[in-house]
């Protein structure tokens, strides 16, 4: 059975919506238009109306915050008028020099939703879309909203996504990496036009370095396109849980939408993804979330009675877990989650 989710698209103030409730939208469809404000210009008012700068208040037809069209009257006095030279937003009125500060609005830019689905509701500055897709929620992420075909870029869920493995074949796609990717690999992916990357883990420093590189490129004006990153498990070198990795493999080639800042991935027309459940019981397959077992999978072989101290000294409920590498270890129940296969739900 295919999944379905409700997704909220946040819209910047001033966006003119081009869709209505009930409309079907595609990931690359223009859902609205927006005009960015540009560097403000000063429109003289006092001089053309032959008034002192301190007297222009009574002549004004607009106030700060007003949105005006080109040619709209800004001020009027005895048949004389001052009109707006461009469409824009009135920011301020200066009593010092008797002028209006106007932020002209730039050319119309399309607003893309990056999701496929039906518009469910329109809220103030947001759009709710019913998405016919399986949703995977990560623990974090960064970057833009993107969409593209899902491809798997590593052989095993614990492999690192190497820079050398990213080529033009991944352009415009969402690439499932493994346990980590370096800042170099992320930079190369972006340069190759990869739409987004899904990782089990990433080192905080690598992510910071990558973001710093992007910031510098943006400031220098040399950056085009969007890029999003989804982090599934945590920070550090953390593999993707093998069951979820297998599910990604099974759905390679499907269209997907990634929302880095929201930590969300949608895969369209896909069967439900494996999920997680707190408080595993004996026999459950689990994934651990804290060191020294972070990202490792295993099976719960026993739940310990009473409270037991972890090596940090914290007394808590513990489970005895047989990890995939054969180790048997007590782990706080709070630090593990059961992996629930879709057919088991």
């Amino acid at each position, binding site marked *: 059975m295919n999944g379905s989710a409700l997704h909220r698209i946040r819209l910047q103030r001033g966006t003119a919506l081009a869709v209505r409730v009930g409309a079907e939208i595609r990931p690359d469809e223009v859902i609205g238009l927006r005009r960015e*404000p540009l560097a403000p210009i000063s429109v003289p008012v006092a001089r053309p109306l032959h008034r002192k700068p301190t007297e222009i208040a009574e002549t004004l037809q607009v106030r700060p*915050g007003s949105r005006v069209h080109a040619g709209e009257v800004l001020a009027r006095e005895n048949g004389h008028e001052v009109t707006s030279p461009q469409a824009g937003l009135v920011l301020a009125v200066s009593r010092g020099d008797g002028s209006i500060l106007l932020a002209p609005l730039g050319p119309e830019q399309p607003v893309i939703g990056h999701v496929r689905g039906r518009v469910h509701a329109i809220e103030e500055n947001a759009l709710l879309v019913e998405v016919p897709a399986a949703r995977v929620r990560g623990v974090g992420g960064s970057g833009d909203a993107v969409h593209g075909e899902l491809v798997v870029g590593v052989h095993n869920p614990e492999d690192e996504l190497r820079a050398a493995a990213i080529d033009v074949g991944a352009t415009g796609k969402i690439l499932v990496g493994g346990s980590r990717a370096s800042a170099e690999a992320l930079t190369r992916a972006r340069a190759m036009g990869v739409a987004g990357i899904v990782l089990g883990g990433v080192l905080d*420093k690598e992510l910071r370095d990558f973001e710093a590189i992007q910031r510098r490129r943006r400031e220098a004006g040399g950056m085009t396109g969007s890029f999003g990153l989804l982090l599934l498990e945590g*920070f550090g070198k953390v593999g993707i849980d093998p069951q979820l990795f297998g599910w990604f493999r099974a759905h390679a080639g499907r269209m997907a939408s990634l929302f880095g800042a929201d930590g969300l991935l949608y895969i369209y027309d896909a069967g439900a993804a494996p999920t997680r459940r707190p408080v595993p019981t004996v026999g459950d397959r689990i994934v651990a979330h804290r060191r*020294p077992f972070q990202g490792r999978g295993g099976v719960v072989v026993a739940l310990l009675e009473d409270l037991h101290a972890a090596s940090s000294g914290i007394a808590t409920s513990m489970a005895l877990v047989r990890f995939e590498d054969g180790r048997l270890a007590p782990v706080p129940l709070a630090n593990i989650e059961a992996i629930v296969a879709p057919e088991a739900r």
Partner: protein
Amino acid sequence: MLVDNGSAWTKGAVVGRSRGRWRIAAHAAQPSTWDDADLVAGLAARLGGHADQRVTERLQRILTDAPRIACHTPARPGRLALVAVSADLSGRAARRAAESAGWVVAEAATVDDGRSAAERLVALQAAEVDAWLLAGGFDAEGGEMALDMAGLVAAARGDGHSPVVWAGSVQLAARVAALFEAGAVRAVANPRPAADREDPLPLRRYLEALLERLVEPGGARQLAPVGFSRAVAELARASQLRIVGIDLGARYATWVSADGGGHAESRILASGGLASPTITVPGGPARIAHSLPIAIDELAVADALQNLRARPGALPQTDEELAIVHGAARALLAELAADESVPDGADLLIGAGLTVAGAPHPAQAMQLLLDGVRPLGVTQLAVDSAGVLPPLGALGNDEIAEGIGTLRDDLLTPLGAAVVSQGGRAGHTAFRITVHRIGWPSLGPVEVRAGQLVLLPLGRGQIAELEIELESGVMIGTPRRARRSHATVMGGAVGLALDARDVPLVLPRRTDDRRAVLASWRDALQREPARPAAGAA
């Protein structure tokens, strides 16, 4: 049952009658993602060995049906756009008031933020906020720049309906209101009425009320930070003590300072907790790595802090992770304390929240409070280990005194007392102290050198009279000329800490020296307190 549904952990406590008295019979904590049935099962398991055998089999049913007093962390914080003239004057005062009232400043724009007007406008248009806070201009002068910034907000807000708060020059209030639709703007007293004066309290109060109205209408008392504040105030009133309470949660941090009359001032920081972004900003992990007594790579610290944010319901499993979490807690407590002043010190310092109150060893809890808050003078220290203060604070005005009074003996776990001094020359004696314990031989005089932390035995409930003699240049919050002072203290799970490490803490620059000093402080509190030889610590 008393239940505190936190953003990461849920704490539950069972109140039962034992030998004619209401007691906290059991308490448990679990990640908030777990079911209520798990909490009930956990509490029943804790009670199992102590409950009347006739009800042992039915404990889970009894607990499920038991009346509850519950509170919760706000589902989401209020988000605010702050627009001011100057980041350091009007902006700073307004930000402090907003953050203290529990708001998150989602976007801030000031004339001196280095951006163009168009960039500011775009950023404000993109901000997802519940309200707009405008500040700027001194009351005596007005200020056209503040009006320009108000215009920027009017342009960014467009046809939105979110409220606008004007907290700038009183002379501009009418002109600012004219920029928006009727009724949109509420003028509040300027938190920076003059260059040399800051008065954020009226704005803080108004923003607290606005937050209640917008984000949690009708249920403010059930909010854990509010409940904690009310419970601390009631404790202060009932005990006539000056109490400082600090609740360090995953998302929120709450600081409450209450006097003996029960008058409390609180600050609620929606982004002040351990999973807040403030500790992972550039420089944050390095600062925390710097404060650890063991060598942990800064990169590992950064990853661990990010994981704390990503999964706040998980527990530190290794020593290293616990050290990092405690390092982060100390840094956050220090930030909170730096913004507060506790007039004439506090009689009692209460630590709450799982990291502080649930530290594996009581000495770790004491060190978190001492290192983070640096309470100058003689202070009792305790923790809310059962997590019952926030839910008790959710009781109505006519019930809270009874609730706190009924459970008073069980509410807090006493850690002991501390004497914290400021000043002194490194390596030289900072103060001498003689401890007279009722029914036991006196200890001392014990000499405590500047930079030293000494622990003396003083068991739970044991009362001691302290004679303190300060060296020149050393203070403990008493009048400057008073070199001798007396105090009465009560012991606890840790003992009596004599702390001459200065306020704020001073650490050696060399890494090895710093770690050695930090480890010696840790060990001083965690090892069994020894009876010192007279005249030396």
